[in-house]
């Protein structure tokens, strides 16, 4: 239900995506890993055309867009198929928590205000922020803001939720609360594409893992395959580097 064909993208003459082909089925949770500069975030942002690929076809649900001929209307339809959770939350700063979640419902899904309010209150309850309806984003911690961001995405009931390094900007002690919310959602069968550096989290919730490097998908497979028996050298090197850091912090935690 997500289909990418031959996606190519360059920044300043430098190719960042060198021909990506990908199929994601309904209900799948796919994690994209890779070093910085690998193109993983760019790929994610092509799914909702926040980055416009130069070539290739993007299809989410029933909406297919050919990059070269993409019209404004097509892009808008495509964007309405998905919802994104941003690394820096990007909550609407001038609206309360409740209003943030309601905004998409009212404007895009044309809900009446009362209905939108009811839905939003339930969602905020679900992410553990039922008591913070009238707070402004500036009054919340990073973890709380991100959970609002997740509620905002959920409200739209999209075909897929896109997560752009959802915990990278958080203080370490706040990461856990956000990850548990994402885990809970994954278990409900919502299609998700996640770009993250949280390896154990990726291992736990993914149906499939993609490893990207230098603008191509180097390897993909189940978490077991990728983490325990990677086929490619590059994948192995990357995982070794990460797990070295991972085991160091793991040991530190044990020592404490």
């Amino acid at each position, binding site marked *: 239900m997500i289909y990418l064909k031959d996606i190519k993208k360059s920044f300043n003459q430098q190719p960042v995506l060198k021909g990506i082909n990908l199929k994601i089925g309904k209900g799948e949770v796919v994690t994209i890993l890779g070093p910085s*500069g690998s193109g993983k975030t760019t790929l994610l942002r092509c799914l909702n055309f926040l980055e416009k690929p130069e070539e290739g076809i993007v299809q989410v649900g029933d909406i297919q867009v050919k990059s070269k001929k993409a019209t404004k209307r097509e892009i808008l339809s495509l964007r309405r198929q998905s919802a994104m959770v941003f690394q820096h939350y990007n909550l609407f700063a001038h609206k309360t928590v409740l209003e943030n979640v309601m905004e998409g419902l009212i404007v895009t899904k044309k809900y009446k205000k009362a209905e939108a309010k009811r839905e939003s209150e339930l969602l905020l309850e679900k992410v553990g922020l039922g008591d913070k309806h009238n707070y402004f984003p500036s009054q919340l911690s990073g973890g709380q803001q991100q959970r609002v961001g997740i509620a905002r995405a959920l409200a739209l009931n999209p075909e897929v939720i896109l997560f752009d390094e959802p915990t990278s900007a958080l203080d370490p002690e706040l990461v856990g609360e956000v990850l548990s919310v994402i885990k809970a959602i994954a278990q409900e069968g919502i299609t998700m594409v996640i770009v993250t550096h949280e390896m154990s989290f990726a291992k736990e919730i993914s149906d499939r893992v993609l490893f990207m490097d230098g603008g191509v998908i180097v390897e993909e497979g189940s978490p077991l395959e990728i983490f325990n028996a990677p086929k490619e050298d590059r994948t192995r090197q990357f995982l070794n580097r990460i797990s070295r850091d991972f085991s160091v912090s793991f040991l530190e935690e044990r020592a404490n």
Partner: protein
Amino acid sequence: MGKAFDPSLIVDFIPTLIYYLGVTLQILAASVLLGMVIGIAAAILRVFRIPVLNQFVILYISFIRGTPILIQLFLVFYGLPAILLFINIDISRMDALYFVIITYALSNGAHFAEIFRGAIKAVDYGQTEAAYSVGMNNSQSFFRIVLPQAIRIAFPNIANSIIGSLKDTSLAFTIGVMDMMGRGETLIAATAHALEVYLSLAVIYYAVVLLFEKIFRLYENRINRHQSVDVSVTG
């Protein structure tokens, strides 16, 4: 209403008017230089909160920023002679040019003071701490470390303020100064081609402003050449 509109006159008038551009620029230069002195002094009084003088400066700045430049021109024009008569100085015959320079100097001084005050406060306090830690006293750390950096921070706003002052000088003719506008008025009286004269003047002012902006931009790049450039993180 007057004779028919003649576009070629616009070009014809330019040399006559440009001749008096010098007067306009003189007013600007003198009032900016004096204004700098006043501005830095006032900013120091504000930043270091020297008692009594601080309040006086606050009032002065508030008044200048609270009244139209035209009113300030008239107040200086009618008020300065009155005040000086109290100490028996008679300047009633002084050339209007000096009244104008004094008015604009006071006006610029107030604006510069606010800009410098902001710029001084914007210099990271860590700089002062570092200065103390290498043994400087208050005035050394201020004049050698803080003020030079403040001037660099203040530069864009000062540049804008100077351009604003250039535009303000267009009002000097109302108290009889023979600058560009003044010459324009006599030209209008002589030829009745008001629109063409004003178009010439507008062209000259526009050209001078663009020139100033260009010069300021170049200078700003020069004084900022040692600043580090932020590297943006690509997503």
